[in-house]
Structure formats: structure tokens, C-alpha cells
């Protein structure tokens, strides 16, 4: 009875912020009943390239229909958020020191995860974090706005080269170009100490990240991410991140450091 009451209170409370999050996305293809037609072809920009623009979420991990709330409600994470190599046969090809580090971080219940301390998630994890992300596609830049911590990442598409000695940063330095219908992004300058997933898979400063982004239809985005980091991994590895379009909603302002009371309780075990 209690949980039913909570659910009822939740739904009753929804209209308070409904004006914000239930605004119909303009210009999206719809079925005769008004629902978005997510199987429609991918849209294109004026210059003929596929448009990646939209609000996206990582495909949530499987969840029984009667257990959605327990799986996180509308805050459901995908499997790669926990373990970026979850679909790789044999898992990630860690170097021995990296395997030891992940073991230690997992044993510590991830208490030193930078995001648990309201630090940035880093370029790769911006794709796997449960809160939504919005892609803006301009002729000279692709911008990813992340709901998590109201932060962004820029991918330059104006033809510039990667810097030779980038300043290490959480997002690194990214340039992108089109190869047919694939948007190919190269990133260097990633900062050591970034976690790639909740397990604590590491990345080092020598890493190069390549993302091939393809919008297979209106509602689906496939991102093949390759990490080439010989210091931390015995060979380059590639994972596919499947993103689903989230229509008729908007990003909220989520600030990790606002009224933050959790980190004091992160004690490992």
C-alpha cells in the first residue's frame, strides 16, 4: 500500500514540472496517432550530412516491466555505464597493473570514482551516464550538452588538426569529419585519472580515442568507440554504444555539487 501511495504521489506531482519536460520536440516525424516515428529515416542537414541532433540516452539495461522503478525509473543506466567492456568476449584487455587497479577500485566499491566527488565524467563517459545528452550540430562544431552537471563537450569540424601537445583535460581535444554517413571523431589529450566506467577502467595520457557515430534511423544512434592506450591495455579495443532518441522532453539542470551530502559517506568497505 505504501509503495502504491508513493507511486500515486509521484504521478500527482508530475504536472509541477510538466511544462518543462513535456514540450513536444518540433520538427520530428510522427505517426498518425501523434507519437514520434522513430523508424523514419535519419534527418539531414542543409549540407547533406546526416544530422545527429537530438536528445539521446544510452540504451538502458534490460529490466522486467514490473521492476522499472527498481531499475532506476526514468534514470536507468545502460550496461556499459558499469563496465564499458561488458559485451567484449573476455572483457577489456587490461595490462596487468590496470587489471590490479580495477580489482582494487571494485573492492573499494568505487569510492574514489571522480563522478562520486562531482568531478567531470570525461568524454567517453558523457555517452554512458544515465542522464540525457543533447547533440547540436553546427557547420564548424558539434556540441554535446550533458544533463549530468550541465556540462558540454566540443568536437571541432572546421578542418583543424589535432594539437601536438594538448593540455590534458577530462574531455580531451576532439576533431571530427564525415566519412560517408559516419561521423568520425579523433580525440587526444585525455587526462590521467579519468574512470571509463564504474568499475574504474583507467585511461592514460597517451590514449587516443576514435568514435564512429552513425544515425541508423531517426530514433537510433550507434557509436563505435575505439580506445588505443597501450600503457593501460594490451591492444586497442572497440565497443558499440547504442543511443536511443528521447523525444518530447528537455534537459534539466542537474548539478552534482548542489546540496551534495554523499561524498562524506563514501567509505568503501
Amino acid at each position, binding site marked *: 500500500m505504501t509503495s502504491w501511495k508513493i507511486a500515486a504521489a509521484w504521478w500527482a506531482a508530475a504536472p509541477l514540472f510538466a511544462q518543462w519536460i513535456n514540450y513536444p520536440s518540433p520538427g520530428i516525424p510522427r505517426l498518425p496517432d501523434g507519437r514520434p516515428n522513430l523508424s523514419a529515416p535519419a534527418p539531414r542537414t542543409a549540407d547533406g550530412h546526416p544530422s545527429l541532433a537530438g536528445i539521446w540516452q544510452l540504451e538502458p539495461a534490460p529490466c522486467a516491466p514490473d521492476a522499472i522503478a527498481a531499475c532506476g525509473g526514468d534514470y536507468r543506466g545502460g550496461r556499459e555505464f558499469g563496465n564499458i567492456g561488458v559485451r567484449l568476449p573476455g572483457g577489456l584487455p587490461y595490462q596487468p597493473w590496470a587489471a590490479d587497479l580495477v580489482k582494487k577500485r571494485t573492492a573499494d566499491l568505487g569510492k574514489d570514482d571522480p563522478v562520486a566527488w562531482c568531478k567531470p565524467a570525461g568524454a567517453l563517459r558523457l555517452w554512458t551516464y544515465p542522464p540525457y545528452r543533447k547533440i547540436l550540430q553546427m557547420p564548424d562544431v558539434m556540441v554535446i550538452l550533458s544533463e549530468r552537471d550541465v556540462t558540454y563537450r566540443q568536437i571541432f569540424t572546421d578542418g*583543424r588538426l589535432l*594539437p601536438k*601537445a594538448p*593540455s590534458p583535460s577530462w574531455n580531451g581535444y576532439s576533431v571530427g569529419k564525415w566519412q560517408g554517413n559516419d561521423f568520425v571523431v579523433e580525440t587526444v589529450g585525455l587526462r590521467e585519472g579519468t574512470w571509463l566506467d564504474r568499475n574504474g577502467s583507467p585511461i592514460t595520457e597517451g590514449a587516443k580515442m576514435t568514435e564512429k557515430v552513425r544515425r541508423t534511423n531517426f530514433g537510433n544512434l550507434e557509436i563505435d568507440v575505439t580506445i588505443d592506450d597501450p600503457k593501460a591495455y594490451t591492444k586497442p579495443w572497440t565497443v558499440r554504444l547504442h543511443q536511443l532518441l528521447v523525444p518530447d522532453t528537455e534537459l534539466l539542470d542537474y*548539478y552534482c555539487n548542489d546540496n551534495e551530502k554523499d561524498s562524506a559517506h563514501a567509505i568503501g568497505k
Partner: protein
Amino acid sequence: MPIGRITLVVTLTLCAPAWAQWLNYPTDGIPRLPDGKPNLNAPAPRTADGKPDLSGLWEPVGPSSSSFVGNSERDPQFQDIAKEIKGGLPLQPWAADLLKARLAANSKDDPDSRCQPLGPIKMHLHPYPRRIIQTPGLLVILFERDTAYRQIFTDGRALPLDPQPSFNGYSTGKWERDTLVVETIGFKDGTWLDVRGTPLTDAARVTERFRRPSFGKLEIAITVDDPKAYTKPWTIQVNQSFAADTDLLEFVCLENERDRAHLTEK
């Protein structure tokens, strides 16, 4: 110590190439003078639909008594938003008392010094650069400070009737000739408008009028209508200049943050 100064300048110059690839990339497609320098007096660009294009990298310009912090010019209104208001702000008595108390406490609870979001008004005045991206239906401001952004919807939607209070509030904009008029409501109570601690409440309605009179100039007139904290609406002017041939760096306030523990009232 003239020799010391020269040594310092030489050292800084030598360091520059380490990040030069990032910061010294020439901005594509901007008007230039015959010597290659950006022509900041050229007319403001326009988008395909004929509206002025506010896109670009912008930095604040102080009205008269600007000071520099490193290579960032500081608008004195960042410190004291009432700097240019004759007679000061029309504070309600409780708001005047609150400001007095914050000043007496050395402004140590400034959200900025705790790596909290600043809200749109203080962000306009923050010395670090910001990039405006103008798309059909949406204007986004990317801030270097804490790598944060703000969205302004220009797709014709109405302001929400009961917005979720947030640091940025909820903003919609529409064009009145060459001026983008942005209305914002839904502020979280407790926002500071400047370093001193000038308050803003959740009753506030803020109107920003953005104009780009030339390629290199952005003018923002900000009107604050907050009857809870002020006896009448008031307006300030923020001027920004175009920053050519550079880009935003990643600044994360909480990164290696060691200041907070040293903040004291006196």
C-alpha cells in the same frame, strides 16, 4: 626589479607554444584587415533567416575602471553589480540587511568560492570567455567557467507557468528587430548577483536584451524585476568584446580545489 620582470615575461613567452595549438587557432570565416588582424568594426554577421548572428567567443569589457586578472579583463560589476547605478540598488529592507551581513562576513559564502553555479547574470560578468552558439530555435551559451552551459529557447514556446527552480532558470527569447529579448523565470532562491552578495529571489523575472552593434561588440542590457528583494525593477548594461583566434579551455572549479578551507569571515 626590472630584470626580474623581463625574465618573467621571457619565461611566459617560452611557455606559450605548449598550448599554442589550442589557443592560437585562427577563427574561421571572420572579417580581417589587410594585415590579417580581425576587423572588429565590420558589420555584425547575420544568419540565413536574416537575424543578427550572436555566435562567437565573447569576453566582458569593463565600463570605465576595468582591471585585469591574468589575461582576463574584469568588469567591476562582477564585484558590485550596482557599480554604475546612481543612488545604488532599490533593495527591500531585508535584502539590504542580508547584503550588509554578507559583506560583514567577507562574502565568504559566495557560491562561486564553493564551486556552485553562478546563474545567468553573474555568468555574463565572469571574466572567463564564453561561446554563443545560435541555432534555429535555440541559443546556447557555453561557459569556460566550470565548463557549464545555458539554453535559451527561441522556438516560440511560452515560459512555463510553474517552472522547476534552477540556477539558470528557464529562458525563452524572441527577436524585436535586431535585438534578441530573453525572458527568464524559475530562479532558485539564494542566487548571488555579484561577489558582494547582492541577492536574487525565486520571484525574479529577468529580461536580457542582446544586441550586436558591430562584429566585435555585444551589448546586453539586463533588467531585474524581483519585487521580493527590490522595491522597483532596475537595469544594468554589460558589454562584451569578440575574442578572435582563441578557444575555450576546460576549467573545472572542483579540480584540486584547496581554497574553501581557507575562507574566513575576516
